[in-house]
């Protein structure tokens, strides 16, 4: 059986022109990405701003046509599909965006925003049926009683409630995969867990696969605890594996540095003196990526090989890592104060 969705050597290069007659500079947002998603699984895609994670989300949902490589949905090339197949793919792969306020039309009620897609795709036959279905959807995402929310406008709801509406809209079309791009980064910390738990429940009860795109390793670990994780740096995947294996023994020097920088809600650990395992703190510009391994200027273990040749993803232990010196990199640990 083929995977739900496969990315084969996908690259996405944007072009930026400076001035009217200026030369176009290529911006390689994704470079040679190989990744597949199985039905019903949760994959966390982690990286800092500018690493290409949002671009990957947009390629997966068909909003960007990749400049190189193939995107397969249930074994078929998305960009060679006929109209009916493409429409089926677009219905089955949904996107939930970061800014819930911008993603909802401020002039339309929740009922209007939620009933349009199901009427359009003929999942319900009448307005009356649509009303019942929207109530059911609001109930599923925990906006109960639905009558209290269905006639509201987006500005009358909190950020957490709007994010639930976006999830309701995403599941209304009975998708097989939802790409959630930083769905909780604009929500108060005290409410984040509830939204993440809702996504994990939708995954279990409806069997929908999720790609959770985030910069936050701690929430990635929370939602995808039994799933997989892929870590991106400057457009490339540098480490990939089950969340448990990746976090139990992170191998790529970049992932080790990233983990060391994550704030820990425990002063005994947070106050322990330590330095980030990095040579340089600033990320190089994606418009001018370093030669060889793009992490080499910041890496403590870099050698001449790293400056010249780019490593490829190779299995090491239980995970897949893209590093020439993976055997040399010491085990990652964290210090505590007594």
């Amino acid at each position, binding site marked *: 059986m083929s995977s739900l969705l496969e990315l084969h050597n996908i690259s996405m290069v944007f072009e930026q022109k400076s001035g009217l007659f200026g030369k176009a500079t290529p911006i390689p947002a994704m470079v040679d990405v190989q990744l597949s998603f199985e039905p019903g699984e949760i994959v966390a895609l982690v990286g*800092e*701003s500018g690493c290409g994670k949002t671009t990957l989300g947009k390629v997966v949902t068909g909003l960007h046509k990749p400049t190189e490589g193939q995107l397969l949905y249930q074994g078929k090339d998305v960009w060679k599909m006929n109209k009916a197949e493409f429409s089926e793919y677009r219905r089955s792969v949904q996107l939930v965006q970061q800014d819930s306020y911008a993603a909802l039309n401020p002039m339309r009620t929740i009922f209007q925003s939620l009933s349009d897609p199901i009427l359009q795709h003929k999942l319900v036959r009448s307005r009356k049926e649509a009303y019942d279905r929207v109530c059911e959807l609001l109930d599923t995402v925990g906006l109960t009683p639905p009558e209290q929310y269905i006639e509201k406008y987006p500005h009358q709801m*909190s950020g*957490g*409630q709007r994010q639930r509406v976006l999830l309701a809209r995403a599941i209304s079309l009975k998708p097989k995969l939802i790409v959630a791009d930083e769905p909780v980064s604009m929500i*108060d*910390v*005290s*409410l*984040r*867990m*509830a939204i993440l*738990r809702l996504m994990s429940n939708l995954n279990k009860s409806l069997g929908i696969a999720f790609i959770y795109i985030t*910069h*936050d*390793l*701690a*929430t990635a*670990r*929370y939602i995808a*605890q039994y799933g997989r994780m892929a870590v991106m740096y400057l457009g490339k995947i540098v480490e990939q594996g089950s969340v448990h294996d990746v*976090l139990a023994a992170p191998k790529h020097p970049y992932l080790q*540095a*990233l*983990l*060391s*920088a*994550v*704030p*820990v*809600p*425990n*002063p*005994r*650990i*947070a*106050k322990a003196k330590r330095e*980030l395992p*990095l040579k340089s*703190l*600033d*990320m190089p510009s994606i418009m001018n990526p370093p030669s060889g391994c793009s992490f080499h200027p910041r890496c403590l273990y870099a050698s001449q090989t790293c400056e010249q040749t780019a490593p490829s993803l190779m299995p090491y232990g239980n995970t897949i890592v893209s590093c020439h010196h993976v055997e040399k990199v010491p085990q990652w640990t*964290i210090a505590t104060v007594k």
Partner: protein
Amino acid sequence: MNENNIIEIRDLSIEFKLRSGTIRAVDHVSLDIPKGKVTALVGESGSGKSTLASAILNIVSAPGTIKNGSIFLNGEDILRYNANRLRHYRWSDVSMVFQAAQNALNPVMRIGEQMIETVLAHKKMGKPEIIEKASQLLDYVRLEPGRVLKAYPHELSGGMKQRVMIAFSLLLDPQLVILDEPTTALDVITQDYIFDILLKVHKEMNITMLLLSHDISVVARVADRIGVMYAGKIVELGETFEMFENAKHPYTAGLIQAAPSILDDVSENKSIKGSSPNLLNLPTGCAFHPRCEFSTDLCKLEQPRAISVGKDRLAACHLNEKGEMLA
């Protein structure tokens, strides 16, 4: 006034008159900011921490008004300062690093010109002298002064702009620097080294800090003391280790439980139920009672007072009055 404190806030209330009613963003708050320490205020959006900080600089702007209370610096109430004295107080005594550094810098002026302008607005000083001071500070926050002084804000990354803002705040050797969400919207690696720099400034230059943040994980590393704000009130205050290991207010305990970590058992994480209160229509009694798992009838009727629950510790929760401590 206790001489160990730089600032003492007493019974401060700040109101905003809106078309739909009056909001009390800061509600009878008293707080000491002790010399040589990092004090943090933690609270969700709308809890009043930024409004409280703007009062310390006396820059509460319309429609906000300070209804009552005092803020003492060396025994003098800064809310009664005249314009001249205020100009000296701002930046020379207390300075601030504002949230979203990209918006705090003028996009059409070079960083060097902006630094000169800032100093001259508060103090008489020669330009070469200012440039020398600015260069030292930029170097101190690990930037290249030669390049940055000539740069426009758009030529700098988010992390660099935030370091420029830190250099700005130190220009006039203040005693206290207020940091309003200094790393929100920055990547974790950038956030980590911004706090490295801030801790260096705090220790080596002996500058007292007041840090405002919505994220209790960030605060755990930097703060010596933590005050937790909810609906305009400080509901718990204490030393950092004490707060994390023995929270006396259910909201503090909830915030700690809601913070995901890369280390602990994820099954122990949980959200606080409900959502932040509407300040136009606050719950009766304790504002937190609809979200609190320990709330009783008393909590619906009566506002708890902040009482001492240990050395230098305060908590405003009826549970403590009855001697029932949180587990």
